[in-house]
């Protein structure tokens, strides 16, 4: 029942419905081959076993960030994670450090609430300075580049500090702030630095680097947090001790 490829895999599925006293685990045997993804397995369960199974997905190719789950404790995008890459029974749980809405679906509002005020939902880059007609593919006049971050929440799930401190703004928001410093495009840099220079912001990270390990989009949030600290120190040297500070000393999203 647990052989790889062309047979059946056993999933231990986290189930929760609003009103339940607590979550419970269900076992499901799912037909699988070498190319069966976790998402495909979950959809099979939804289609053939339990239509009430709650799961969230969209693009099927790791660009929307919607289908984040934990597979045997590690964060993954379900649409590109193969069952064949995991031995034995496969535990599928919602990503951590966020409220569970339904089964493996979490409420992402607290994730987005951590971002600085100036965070738009979608931000397009300007055409890259070096991009010209010779760089573009046929029929494409200019490039537009969106952020690497797909806001999947895997980094927040993996972070051991977010596990105990709900006020810690977390890797995604901090990495985003650092990206704003790299490409401000009208953003108030000083306001971003003020926001980051607090106990529950850039200085809350303890360099576990789990966020970078979990990130499916090469954002490298931990490295960006360290770069953010470097900017904060540069600012201190530049400005001396005059640092605008929120009244209660914590960064508010």
């Amino acid at each position, binding site marked *: 029942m647990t052989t790889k490829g062309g047979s059946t895999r056993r999933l231990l599925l986290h189930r929760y419905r609003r009103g339940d006293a607590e979550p419970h685990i269900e076992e499901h045997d799912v037909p699988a081959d070498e190319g069966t993804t976790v998402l495909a397995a979950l959809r099979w369960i939804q289609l053939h076993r339990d239509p009430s199974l709650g799961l969230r997905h969209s693009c099927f190719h790791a660009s929307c960030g919607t289908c984040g789950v934990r597979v045997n*404790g590690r964060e993954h995008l379900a649409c590109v994670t193969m069952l064949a890459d995991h031995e034995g029974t496969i535990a599928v749980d919602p990503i951590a450090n966020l409220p569970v809405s339904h089964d493996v679906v*979490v409420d992402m509002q607290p994730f987005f609430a951590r971002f600085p005020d100036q965070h738009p939902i979608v931000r397009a880059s300007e055409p890259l300075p070096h991009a010209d007609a010779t760089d573009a593919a046929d029929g494409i006049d200019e490039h537009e580049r969106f952020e690497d971050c797909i806001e999947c929440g895997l980094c927040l799930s993996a972070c051991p500090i977010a596990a105990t401190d709900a006020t810690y703004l977390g890797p995604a928001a901090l990495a985003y702030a650092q990206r704003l410093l790299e490409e401000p495009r009208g953003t108030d840099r000083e306001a971003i630095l003020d926001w980051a220079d607090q106990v529950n912001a850039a200085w809350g990270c303890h360099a576990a680097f789990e966020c970078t390990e979990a990130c499916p989009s090469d954002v490298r949030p931990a490295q960006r947090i360290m770069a953010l600290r470097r900017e904060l120190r540069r600012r201190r040297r530049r400005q001396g001790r005059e640092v605008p500070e929120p009244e209660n000393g914590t960064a508010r999203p």
Partner: protein
Amino acid sequence: MRGSRGGRERDPGVEEILRGRRGEGPISRKAPGPVAWFDVRSMTTGHLAFSIHRITGIGIVFYLYLHLAVLSMLLGGEDAWSGFLELATTPLFLGLDVILVFGLLVHGLNGTRLALVGSGFVADHQKALFWSGMAFGAILLLYAALHVFTAGD
């Protein structure tokens, strides 16, 4: 940035995040509370470093006060100290000394890594820094252990 609402005991930052919760669902957790800091299941290098840094740090703080308490025995005069020395030179106690040295080495060497990485330097090499630091520490620990058990022979 949003303005302050000062004058309230509750931290507005926390409140705003919690207000974002629409449902009543439990928070999904890998492990209960601080256990998550030390959860060794599928732990990556950086997390391992964070965990042992925290454990050794807490252990060394505990040792600081233990050490002050032990040194306070000197106030009891030569007999009191000699009594302690008899205990302190037993193999079990010497073994604890080696554990102390292990803790100091791990915390110090990983702390050096943290100072470098946390300052924004060499963040991309944090794994190599950790393992090379631990390798160097292992050599020092071996030397220290040999000395602890053989000094005075």
